[in-house]
Each structure stands twice: as structure tokens, then as C-alpha cells.
């Protein structure tokens, strides 16, 4: 059989064609397909609420929270700054990437509290949980001497306990939502103990805090908070509002806000008095949050 020259040429060219097709760029494929949704909120606090944001193992988180007096008197007391602030210092340490413990001290009622934070559900980018959920349990002791009340309060009358279960979802890079079912119990209540309880009968308070965050730049967010809380004995609902601004500067998160509550911990946020926004009974406050990696 006589071989046609063009067939030989075709056969010899085949490998070259194959080689030239193989020079395409690598197809870009993501290695990490399903990862935890992170930084739903920039820090463990959202104005006065706890978030689902956990600490890393070995991370030391330090926050200073302030809530000044109400702005209603204007420049007379410099919009509440002259009234003195409720200041809360807290230190929190990450035992694992999901579990941390903390201790804090608030100037209001000279309150010491301590507790733990546990993240039991983590929102994922792909398949997995659609939300993150955590648990924060705090036990506190009021150490104010209350001598001005002409009565004594033993240690057993000074205790408070709060359990909050923040649930959050990050919808996109800009918008996050937070729901915080919460309950608090006091071993004794009294309006002079900063608890809004006209009948002096309530011991248990419950509510569902709500918060959201909208990032308008890569480092800045506007934040809002609403905490309706229910008094079981009085059957009344008290309402807390707050609006704020978060600024991330790398390492630090600064939060400034206006809130109608002076409370800086969960128990007082549910049980404490809330002013009227239309009557300018709200106050300026700010939080400084800083993290250190020590292990």
C-alpha cells in the first residue's frame, strides 16, 4: 500500500498540537471551600450587648467601657460628661478558640463580675450552620457599702446572675444581625441599686436584645441596639435603645454610642433604668477594645 505524504505529515504534527494546547494557564481553584464566617462583629461587644465573636486560644482581650450622664442638661454639665461615668474594665482570656473566661469591675454599685463565653455554633461560608450562636454566663457581686441607705445588705443580697445566648448572622461583608435572648436574676432588688423596679418585687428580668451592624467603609460601621426587657412581677416592658459607631484601627476597636441606659453588663442592661430618647435622657458612651496574643 502506498502511504500518502499528507498523512505522514499529519501524524508527525499531532504531538506538537497536543503540546501547544497544554500551555494554558492553571485553572484557579479555591482550596478553602467551606470556612468559618469570621468577624461578624469586630469584637466581643456590640455597644452594650455581648456578641458571638469568640476569642482565639491564648488571646487576651481587654476592654474599657464608659457610659456618662444624660445629655439633657446640655452644656451645663457638658452633655453629661460632668456627671461622671459608669466605667467597666474587663479582661477576657481565650482558653480555646471557642471558650474564654473573663473578670470585670464596674464602678456603678462597685460591681465585680466574672463568667465565661462559649461559641457552640459557627456560621460557615458553604455548607453548615447558617448562624453563629454562643453562650455567655456572668455572675456578679455588688460591693457598694450602701451606708447612705441606712440599712445593710449581706453578701447573699448582693448577687446577680445573667445568661445570654447571642445568635448572629453575617449576611455579607457589610451587614450583620444579632439576636440576644437574655435572662438575669438578682438576689435582691431596689431602685437605689440601679434597678428599675418601682414595686421593689422583681428578681427576674428577661428580654431579647437585637443589634445590627452596617459597614460603610472597610474600617467603620454604624451600629444599632434595641433591648426590650420584661419584668415578671410588674409585668412591664422596659426598652433600651442605642446607636453607635465602630471604628477599627488594627488591634483596637473603638466604639462610640448614645444609649438610654447606663448599664455596661448584661444583668443591668435588662434590669436597669432606661431614659426617654425624645426627652434627651440618653447618654454618651464609648468602649475601647484591644486584643493581645500572649500564648
Amino acid at each position, binding site marked *: *500500500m502506498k*502511504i*500518502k505524504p499528507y*498523512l*505522514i505529515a499529519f*501524524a*508527525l504534527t*499531532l*504531538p*506538537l498540537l*497536543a*503540546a501547544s*494546547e*497544554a*500551555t494554558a*494557564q*492553571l485553572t*484557579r*481553584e*479555591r*482550596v*478553602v471551600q467551606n*470556612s468559618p464566617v*469570621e*468577624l461578624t462583629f469586630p469584637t466581643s461587644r456590640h455597644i452594650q450587648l455581648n456578641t458571638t465573636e469568640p*476569642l*482565639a*486560644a*491564648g*488571646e487576651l482581650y481587654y476592654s474599657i467601657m464608659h457610659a456618662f450622664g444624660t445629655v439633657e442638661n446640655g452644656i451645663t454639665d457638658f452633655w453629661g460628661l460632668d456627671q461622671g461615668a459608669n466605667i467597666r474594665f474587663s479582661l477576657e482570656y481565650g482558653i480555646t*478558640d471557642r471558650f474564654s473566661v473573663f473578670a470585670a469591675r464596674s464602678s456603678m454599685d462597685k460591681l465585680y463580675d466574672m463568667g465565661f463565653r462559649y461559641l457552640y455554633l459557627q456560621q460557615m*461560608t458553604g455548607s453548615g450552620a447558617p448562624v453563629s450562636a454562643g453562650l455567655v454566663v456572668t455572675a456578679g457581686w455588688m460591693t457598694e457599702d450602701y451606708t447612705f441607705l441606712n440599712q445593710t445588705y449581706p453578701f447573699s443580697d448582693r448577687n446577680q446572675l445573667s445568661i445570654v445566648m447571642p445568635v448572629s448572622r453575617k449576611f455579607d*461583608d457589610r451587614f450583620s444581625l444579632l439576636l440576644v435572648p437574655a435572662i438575669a436574676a438578682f438576689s435582691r432588688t431596689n431602685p437605689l441599686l440601679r434597678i428599675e423596679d418601682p414595686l421593689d418585687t422583681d428578681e427576674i428580668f428577661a428580654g431579647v436584645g437585637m443589634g445590627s451592624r452596617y459597614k460603610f467603609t*472597610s*474600617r467603620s460601621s454604624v451600629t444599632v441596639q434595641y433591648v426590650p426587657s420584661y419584668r415578671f412581677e410588674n409585668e412591664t416592658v422596659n426598652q433600651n435603645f442605642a446607636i453607635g459607631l465602630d471604628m*477599627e*484601627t*488594627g*488591634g*483596637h476597636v473603638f466604639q462610640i454610642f448614645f444609649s438610654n441606659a447606663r448599664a455596661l453588663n448584661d444583668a443591668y442592661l435588662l434590669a436597669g433604668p432606661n431614659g426617654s430618647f425624645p426627652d434627651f435622657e440618653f447618654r454618651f458612651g464609648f468602649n475601647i477594645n484591644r*486584643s493581645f*496574643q500572649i500564648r
Partner: protein
Amino acid sequence: MKRSAFYWIFMGCLLFCGRPAIAQLYVATDGYVEFISTAPLLEFKGTSDNLAGLINLETGEVDFYVDLASLDTGNRRRDRDMRQVYLETDKYPFAEFGGTLTSHFDPEMEGEQPATVTGSFKMREISRDMTISGTIEATDEGIRVRAGWEILLEDYDIDRPSVLFYELSDVQTINIDILLRPHYEN
């Protein structure tokens, strides 16, 4: 059945010509890459074993990329900030280098040979032209590439913390070490 002469020539070409021509292509997806940040108070590095690479010895074409979300600095908090705040890996997942091998490489020679590639390094959809020096070494398994170079984060519009504590250096040293294996197209 009697085979035609054309059949035998065709099969011979596939057997003896095809494989060496296609084996000019070397690829891998398990290379090592590290990003080293040397700040005044702190040095750390993010590493990944998911560097993907391609070299076509015939055309000189090189192509490397890594999924930046796979970088691990050994600190979850820092990883989180790196991915979410600085690199924004959900939006810009890859760091890439594409270019051309401009130095000669002899696959028959033993030991490391100096190599130079010219191309562009791309992160966050920003490309910067650069020339990178390294070494290429022919091994029994394929060819091994090692290289290192520096980039400036500001060149890629990466916003660093700018108050008090500098945790992230603007200068990032990138080192790669990858064994590329022969790749045969089916």
C-alpha cells in the same frame, strides 16, 4: 488482521514523539509558600502547602497561584484579621504570578541552576511587573523551583494598621519551594 504502514507510523509517532513533547509541561498543586512580615516589634510568617504552579519548558511560560485563605500564621486571631481585614480573601482569593522564564534551563544538568522569570505578581486585582530570581533543579521526580522576592503591601492597596502597634510590615518577603512533576495530557 494486517496493519497498514500508516497505522504503524502513526502509533510510532504517538509513542516516541508525543510523550517527550508533552512532558515539557510540569505542574503541581502542593508547593510551599511563605509570606514573612518583619515589623519592628514582631515578625511572623503565613505559610501554605497549597501553592499551585506550572512551567512549560518549551515556551518558558510560568504560572503560580495560591489560595490566600489557606495561609496559616499559627494564630487564629491574626489569620482572621489577615483574611477579613487586610487581604479580603472572600473578594480576592488568589495571589498569582504569571510570566516567562528568561534564563536557560538544562534538564540534563545536575544540581541547582540559577533562573530568572519576568512577569507580574497579582493580588487584589492589582498587578505589578517584576523580575524574580531563584533556582531550578532537575530531580528524579520532576523539577524543583525555589525563589524569593519582596512586595510592598501598599502596592496592592492593602491597608495596614497605622496607630501605635505595627503588627504588619509593609514589606512582605515571599518564598516559594515547589516540586513540579511532568504532566501528560490525555
